[in-house]
């Protein structure tokens, strides 16, 4: 199994989710994060205070997948999160030692395979 961690632009989230759904990738975790990916700093002014916004809002996706799903997932993210400008984000693929599904106690491959529809 692998853990895919993707950092993307917040306004690309809907497109990425749609692409993942089309690629049959279900179960994932999404969090709002702050980050910096080398893009030009944005300057904001509030009365006399001028600030450079170094940390941009990003969205982090965490997706646990079985090995044969890695390429599909990565491809879906790359295809949907890109704008071509600096700051589009990264996709990391990490090895995972163990996965346990809390509800059933299933582990590893079985724990990252979505239950069949209607089986719930």
């Amino acid at each position, binding site marked *: 199994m692998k853990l895919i961690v993707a950092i993307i632009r917040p*306004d690309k989230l809907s497109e990425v989710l749609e692409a993942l759904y089309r690629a049959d990738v279900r179960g994932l975790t999404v969090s709002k994060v702050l980050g910096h990916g080398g893009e030009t700093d944005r300057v*904001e002014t509030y009365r006399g205070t001028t600030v450079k916004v170094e940390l941009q809002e990003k969205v982090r996706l965490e997706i646990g997948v079985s090995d044969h799903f890695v390429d599909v997932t990565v491809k879906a993210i790359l295809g949907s999160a890109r*704008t071509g400008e600096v700051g589009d984000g990264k996709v990391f693929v990490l090895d995972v030692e163990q996965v346990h599904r809390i509800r059933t106690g299933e582990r590893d491959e079985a724990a990252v395979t979505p239950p069949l529809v209607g089986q719930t």
Partner: protein
Amino acid sequence: MPSPLPLLLLVQDAAPAIVPADTAWMLVATGLVLLMTPALAFFYGGLVRAKNSLNTMMMSFAALGAVGITWAVIAYSLAFAEGTAWLGGTAHALLAGVGTEAKGTIPHVLFMAYQGTFAIITAALISGAVVERMRFGPYLAFIVLWTLVVYAPVAHWVWGGGWLMTKGVLDFAGGTVVHINAGISAVVAALVLGSRKDYGRQAIVPHNVPFVLLGAGLLWFGWFGFNGGSALAASELAALAFTNTFLAPMATLVAWMLLDYLRTGHATAVGGATGVVVGLVAITPAAGFVSPAGALALGALAALPSYFGILWRSRTRLDDSLDVFAGHGLGGLTGALLTGVFARKAWNAAGSDGLLAGNPGQLGLQALGASASLVYAGLMTFVLLRLLALLVPLRATARTEGKGMDVTQHGEEAYADGEGSILVMSDGASVAAITPAMTPEPAAR
């Protein structure tokens, strides 16, 4: 020694009389209507996404400046100076001849200011159809031109002695001039601009519903000046208009909540706020012509076209984002037509009888007034935007839309917390880190 008082009274009698009570009420009413534009900013601002909330609010707020100045410079004259049946003259350009002399029973300057608050909010209303995608500069240019080319002439037609006024079309406080005008212009603007890139693809939901309720509440408060002040006097008529403005939205609110409840099983807050605004819009042309009971009936009926108009619109490709047409256009039309149904001379001798009082002709006149505004404002808005588009791009790029209009148009965020931001010092070169995470750890000792 004889008192100088009788002599003073004599002098006052000679000039057209300013009535202090009328002046006092109109001073307050002007402030009330001005407050409606910031109120609209909250109403609209709450309905959009967080990343566009400042831009949306600024579209209303900026009208206070841009349209207000336009009004003083020339638009007031075009609307209210002596002119033809189609347009006022330039006698009051740059407020020439607008002094403290009486206009009716209030000082002329006050009349000008009061009418100016109407011009401002009418232009701001249109913004609801183009939020989250129209660039700020072209928007400002558009509302200035629109005030000159659409608002001023139509205000002249209905209130400034123009042809609709002469024909006897009833529009107490601006159902046609303000709401039908803004409503049709909004729908045309939405068509010219095109829909937001995310429209119909993702769920776009209001980012701050309490703002929407706050805005609707403040709009109602300000509307007492809008309708009550349209009597232009502290009179029985003002009291009637005030009371009708009090009652009609209550009926619309109840009707809207019922419709919401029957359709979805919930009375929604955004729906309630919308219902209040629709009720206010609908009673606007009728406020000084119908009975309080008529206002209740009118308010309840007004919920129907707007409620189902919004439902229909949101299923189409027409991205009138904040439903300005369904709210103000349909609400204004319903109000204008129902004025021709419920109007009674018994309540306002200066008005007319409507259909229920045995004068079906009034309904036809109301339809004429509404159609004139629909056709003229719709056409001119289209022409203005197309001409403007030849000079500058009207809408933001898809990337800009993605980033949001607040940071791209204004360089600000509505809900910034300063985390990850670096203070730029006044000399421009030195910066001080204010975020611990960005400060290098002190070397271990």
